């Protein structure tokens, strides 16, 4: 149990912090003892031990690190992680944006955790599995989860957001290939994601770019026969269409926009196209129209 502190202890530690802040590149124990009253009346060894304890408190409670430089026999503060301006910018960001879905230690000492989040203009909900997967990626630990009724074990490489859904990409042990899984499809369990195997159990190519691994857009990586398509889209739906499928507005015909895009994943294109019903109709090429017609004929039976 901790003893009740004298006011002097906290005062001494704060004095030490500000003293070292202003005394870069550092100060010797002798200088500290001379300048800070709390160390003044101790013998050298007692002062050294007291200083060590105080530096440990500074680290543990305030995240302030100081280290001893053996070459100069001085104590010096480590550089701050954020500048004042950076810290203020992040506090403003934390005021503006509330992130829901990350359950962690709500210690106020953590930057941005003491803001009044009621005034947040943006509320973003991240997937509940994001942190568990991020930790697994950081520690290079394989994970297990249930997905569409099957057990999956993967070496997770990256997690990311695309079109409002979070995904994880990783090497699937059973399928022996890289796969992408949607986090909201992971089946509930306790825990839903469990680490398996040892930490540092796999490697990620140092040159690998997470963004390129998470090419979630099927029209980017699709391997179907590519079609240069032209789609007639009602003006009011152009923005929504391009949000979903991309493409370029190339002209207007009879008061409707013509969007040009290359279709590389037929199923994905078809699935998204039906969102727009009669407001978006493929006019070229005939091969793509034939594919859509065949699908609709089967659907109409």
């Amino acid at each position, binding site marked *: 149990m901790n003893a009740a502190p004298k006011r002097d202890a906290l005062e001494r530690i704060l004095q030490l912090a500000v003293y070292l802040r202003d005394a870069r590149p550092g100060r010797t124990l002798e200088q500290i003892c001379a300048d800070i009253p709390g160390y003044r009346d101790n013998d050298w060894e007692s002062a050294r031990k007291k200083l060590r304890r105080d530096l440990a408190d500074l680290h543990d409670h305030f995240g302030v690190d100081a280290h001893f430089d053996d070459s100069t026999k001085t104590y010096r503060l480590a550089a701050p992680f954020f500048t004042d301006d950076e810290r203020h910018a992040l506090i403003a960001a934390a005021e503006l944006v509330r992130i829901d879905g990350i359950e962690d230690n709500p210690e106020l000492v953590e930057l941005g955790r003491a803001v009044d989040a009621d005034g947040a*203009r943006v509320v973003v909900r991240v997937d509940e599995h994001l942190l568990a997967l991020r930790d697994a990626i950081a520690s290079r630990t394989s994970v297990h989860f249930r997905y569409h009724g099957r057990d999956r074990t993967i070496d997770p490489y990256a997690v990311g957001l695309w079109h409002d859904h979070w995904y994880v990409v990783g090497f699937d042990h059973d399928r022996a290939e890289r796969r992408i899984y949607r986090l909201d499809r992971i089946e509930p369990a306790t825990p839903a994601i469990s680490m398996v195997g040892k930490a540092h159990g796999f490697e990620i190519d140092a040159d690998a770019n997470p963004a390129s691994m998470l090419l979630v857009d099927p029209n980017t990586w699709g391997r179907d026969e590519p079609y240069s398509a032209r789609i007639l889209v009602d003006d009011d739906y152009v923005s929504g269409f391009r949000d979903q499928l991309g493409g370029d507005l190339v002209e207007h015909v009879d008061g409707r926009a013509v969007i040009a895009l290359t279709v590389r994943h037929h199923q994905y294109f078809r699935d998204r196209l*039906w969102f727009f019903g009669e407001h978006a109709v493929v006019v070229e090429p005939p091969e793509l129209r034939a594919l859509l017609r065949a699908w609709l004929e089967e*659907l109409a039976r």
Partner: protein
Amino acid sequence: MTLKKTDQFRALRDVLALAEERRGIRLDDAADHLGIARDDLREALDPVLFLEWRDALGELIGNAGAFILWEDGLLQVDGGHWLRSIASEPPSGANAVRLFLAGMIARAVVEATTPLDTAVAKLREIVAADVVFDPELPRFVTVCQAAHDDEAVLRVRYVSERYESPREFTIECHRVASKWGNWYVMARRDGDPEPRPFRIDRIVAAERTGESFTVDPTISLPEWFAIPESTVTLRLVADDLDRVPKPNRVTRCDELEAGRVEVDIAVLGEHRVDQVLAVLGPAAEVVAPSDALDRRRAFARTMLAHYG
């Protein structure tokens, strides 16, 4: 009662955080927040309210440590605050992710600044080797926000999934906010006293009418939208579940033979049932509701008229 050492440190660091991040906090409120007695907190803060020290000869060395001001019961951090600013430890893993996401979104919503850019870059080093996140804004977010700031009425053209044709009406933008992946403006439409949420990505045109209104700061985005759900029951190949279009969700999934599953899909809004059925296609066996098969056929026949 004097606080124990650990509690004293915690009280100081938490009050520092509250005072800095809320631009001040009353001593009573801080004591409530921390769950300790007001007098204990006051005593714990003594060293930072009146920090000074003297050299061996009694000369004042400085009082640079006194970084908390206490006036009229309000605790504030002054410009010389330094204790948090010398922290060298990076944010913890979870908080680093939180700050990174908040910082990235803030850069997209408000004008990016150099400090925010460099702070996000530092956080990226911690988390973004693994987390890919690049927020995008609907094109009329800034227009709605500016109309809110200037209290200017907008005439908008709005595409709703429920109606065949876009509609035009005026809105008073009382609050612009993003929630659950979509941007909304809480607005009074055509002067209607009841504010309603409108999805900003469905606004396809907007211009100011020249009229003005007074922002009601009490209007906020509801915690939840009461949109009626329909349930569709289908049997399909398990891998096809990834194709269920958002925002609809699978609420039951029972495994069948040969990689097939029977699922209940909660469809948000009756109007989206046709979409779900069309997307999952002819290989999805319709179990319920009884009219779903007819709806799917009707959608297909309507579309076939364009692909004949």
